[in-house]
């Protein structure tokens, strides 16, 4: 029997913070707001650590019912919390990174007029994210799922006076809703066929089922639908379009929600439902293909972006693609591993980028930066760490996780691996491009020239001039930098002499039930034949080479010969423009869905059916009646003789009728 860990505290604490700040924050001082927000976020983190400490002593999975929620007939959903290795990892990532970003935000948002609102939203986000992570059933997960959507809607649109920000928020929410639609249908299928949404019950019910080798069976359908939901939340093709726009939000938000935590919810959900996926190879293939394509596709777009945050955004999309690739090939633990490392280095990168933007007074265009490495050394170094990590330079977090994924991809299907490899090259290329453009060469901006106006969107500080960020922002950077350097060592594969602790840790979740894995599910690390490891080593080497190639290309184009890119762009302007305009996807969507919908609804449905058909019919009936009446009253000619005529005629008719009746009788 497990002790009661009061897991409910973890989500509820941030909620309390949100509530307090939300109702009282407007009046109270910034310090007070800060205290409340940090305290509750920190408390959640602390409690998560406590849980982690007592974790070893638990029988897993550990379920904690909390309260009744919905009861309808024999179908019921309750609030319950579900703790196992997977959710613990997520828990620590979310609370930990979340707390760091809270701290960072204090500095970043300090001058913003609605400081309290920001932290309210941030805490609210924590609440929903933790609900998602700790949920004991799909519906509760859906609460968090939609809730984080709401939080990101609010935070993206935080500077709502900017139309672009407001629209971005709305776009994010709606696109997410499209994903949620798929999720919902999946839930209905689960209810219909398994009568429950509790993870334990569903999985128990699913386990005995045999994998659906061919065709689209029930589990495959469910899997694909879940993937639709995941694609919405985790910005995969075709629903990734909201994430780049989401960069309208304050940078900490981008770091927390759109890099570290929320967008990874999809990966979490898929891994959580791995029991289903393992029995639905078709679904897994879909996941893998979508992941791979997204990874490549987004990376290519990343090349041509000039907005520093946009670059990171696309890189996020591409990295998420990696994670899905991993899940798709059944390497869930690898996916989660990458999720964690990505949380570290991408969070770091965003925060660093934020620090840069902060420094240059809200400028986001890399073409207006350059040579900053001297001016903001802390930022520079931390950013470097992040860049190296993501580029997959050996020894850093990103290297291990990405390598793991590629290796597993190869085991599943070499095309995945190839695409992943190319993507890796592109990744390191655009990341170093960013690095060079931002920190090397000479400064191309004009911040010294103009004083920085306070109520500029990126609520920066009062005085002009490029300067290092305050300590409260730097400290989180440093911590994350350290994490993204060493974070990978928890999962060093055996081939590199490590003993993949991370995977072993997650093993009970992913392989304990893996009674019958399809070809997609790889055998557990431990039982891996030795011959493989040499192979793996070779592939590792290849990816390392690729990473350095990327660096080299970036060095050549953006440091050594800065004029080249322009020429290249000019020479192959078609391709370049396509990239700059992100393959015109937004435009295509607008033309395909948005505009037809609006116009159709206006012209055909509202003006057409409603006005011209239904209403017209009704009103015409009315006018018709009046018209008839107008005609009928001419019977009332007012002439006595006519009246007598009517009477006489009527009398004649009745007499005739009566006689007929009489005779007929």
């Amino acid at each position: 029997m497990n002790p009661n860990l009061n897991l409910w505290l973890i989500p509820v604490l941030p909620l309390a913070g949100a509530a307090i700040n939300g109702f009282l924050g407007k009046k109270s001082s910034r310090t007070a707001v800060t205290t409340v927000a940090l305290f509750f976020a920190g408390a959640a983190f602390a409690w998560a650590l406590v849980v982690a400490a007592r974790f070893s002593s638990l029988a897993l999975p550990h379920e904690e019912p909390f309260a009744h929620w919905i009861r309808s007939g024999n179908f019921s959903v309750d609030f319950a919390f579900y703790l196992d290795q997977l959710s613990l990892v997520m828990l620590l990532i979310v609370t930990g990174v979340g707390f760091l970003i809270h701290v960072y935000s204090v500095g970043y948002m300090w001058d913003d007029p609605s400081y309290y609102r920001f932290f309210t939203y941030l805490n609210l986000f924590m609440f929903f994210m933790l609900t998602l992570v700790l949920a004991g059933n799909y519906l509760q997960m859906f609460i968090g799922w939609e809730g984080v959507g709401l939080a990101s809607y609010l935070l993206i649109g935080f500077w709502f006076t900017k139309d672009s920000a407001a629209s971005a928020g709305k776009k994010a929410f709606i696109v997410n809703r499209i994903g949620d639609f798929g999720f919902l249908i999946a839930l209905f299928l689960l209810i219909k066929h398994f009568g429950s949404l509790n993870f334990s019950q569903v999985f128990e019910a699913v386990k005995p089922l045999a994998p659906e080798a061919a065709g689209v069976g029930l589990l495959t359908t469910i899997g694909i639908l879940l993937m639709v939901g995941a694609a919405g939340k985790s910005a995969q093709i075709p629903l990734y379009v909201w994430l780049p726009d989401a960069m309208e939000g304050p940078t900490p938000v981008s770091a927390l929600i759109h890099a570290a935590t929320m967008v990874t919810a999809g990966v979490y959900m898929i891994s959580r439902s791995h029991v289903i996926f393992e029995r639905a190879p078709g679904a897994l293939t879909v996941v893998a293909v979508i992941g791979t394509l997204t990874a490549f596709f987004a990376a290519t777009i990343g090349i041509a972006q000039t907005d520093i945050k946009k670059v990171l955004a696309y890189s996020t999309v591409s990295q998420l693609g990696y994670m899905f690739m991993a899940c798709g090939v059944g390497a869930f633990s690898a996916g989660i591993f990458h999720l964690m490392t990505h949380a570290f280095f991408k969070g770091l990168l965003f925060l660093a980028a934020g620090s840069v933007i902060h420094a240059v007074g809200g400028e986001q265009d890399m073409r207006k930066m350059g040579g900053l490495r001297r001016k903001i050394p802390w930022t520079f170094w931390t950013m470097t760490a992040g860049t190296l990590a993501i580029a997959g330079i050996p020894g850093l977090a990103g290297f291990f996780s990405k390598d793991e994924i590629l290796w597993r991809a190869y085991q599943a299907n070499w095309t995945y691996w190839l695409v992943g490899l190319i993507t890796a090259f592109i990744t390191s290329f655009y990341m170093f491009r960013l690095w060079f453009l931002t920190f090397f060469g000479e400064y191309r901006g004009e911040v010294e020239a103009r004083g920085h106006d306070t109520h500029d969107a990126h609520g920066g500080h009062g005085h002009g001039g490029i300067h290092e960020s305050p300590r409260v922002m730097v400290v989180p950077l440093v911590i994350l930098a350290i994490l993204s350097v060493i974070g990978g060592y928890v999962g060093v594969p055996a081939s590199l002499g490590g003993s993949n602790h991370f995977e072993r840790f997650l093993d009970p979740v992913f392989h304990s039930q893996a009674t019958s894995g399809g070809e997609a599910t790889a055998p557990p690390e431990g039982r891996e034949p030795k011959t493989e490891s040499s192979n793996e080593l070779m592939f590792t080497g290849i990816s390392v080479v690729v990473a350095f190639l990327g660096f080299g290309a970036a060095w050549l184009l953006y440091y050594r010969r800065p004029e080249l890119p322009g020429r290249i762009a000019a020479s192959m302007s078609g391709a370049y423009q396509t990239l700059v305009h992100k393959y015109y996807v937004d435009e295509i969507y607008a033309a395909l869905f948005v505009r037809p919908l609006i116009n159709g609804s206006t012209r055909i449905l509202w003006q057409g059916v409603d006005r011209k058909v239904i209403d017209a019919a009704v009103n015409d009936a009315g006018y018709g009646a009046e018209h008839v009446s107008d005609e009928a009253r001419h019977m009332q000619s007012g002439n006595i003789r006519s009246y007598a005529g009517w009477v006489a005629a009527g009398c004649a008719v009745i007499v005739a009728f009566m006689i007929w009746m009489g005779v007929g009788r």
Partner: protein
Amino acid sequence: MNPSQVPLSYYLLLSGFLFVCGVLGFLIKRNIITIFMSIELMLNGVNLSFVAFAAHWHALAGQVFVFFVMVVAAAEAAVGLAIIIAVFRTRETLNVDQVNLLKL
């Protein structure tokens, strides 16, 4: 057939004829007074059939009825002519086709 015997149907047909004439008069005459007279004609037709039926049934009720009809006719005549006078006073006409203020 015995010439001193008049078939009942003759009386009835006559009365019916008078009645129809009265109705026709009401329909085609323009002068209000004449129209009123046609009503009287109708009543006379009715009376005739009353009397005829009374004779046929050997029931005096018919004749009594005729008596009452006459009284009523007289009363109606008094009122009706008064009304006609009132109308004439306000409209200066006896043509029924011009008495159509109230219509539609």
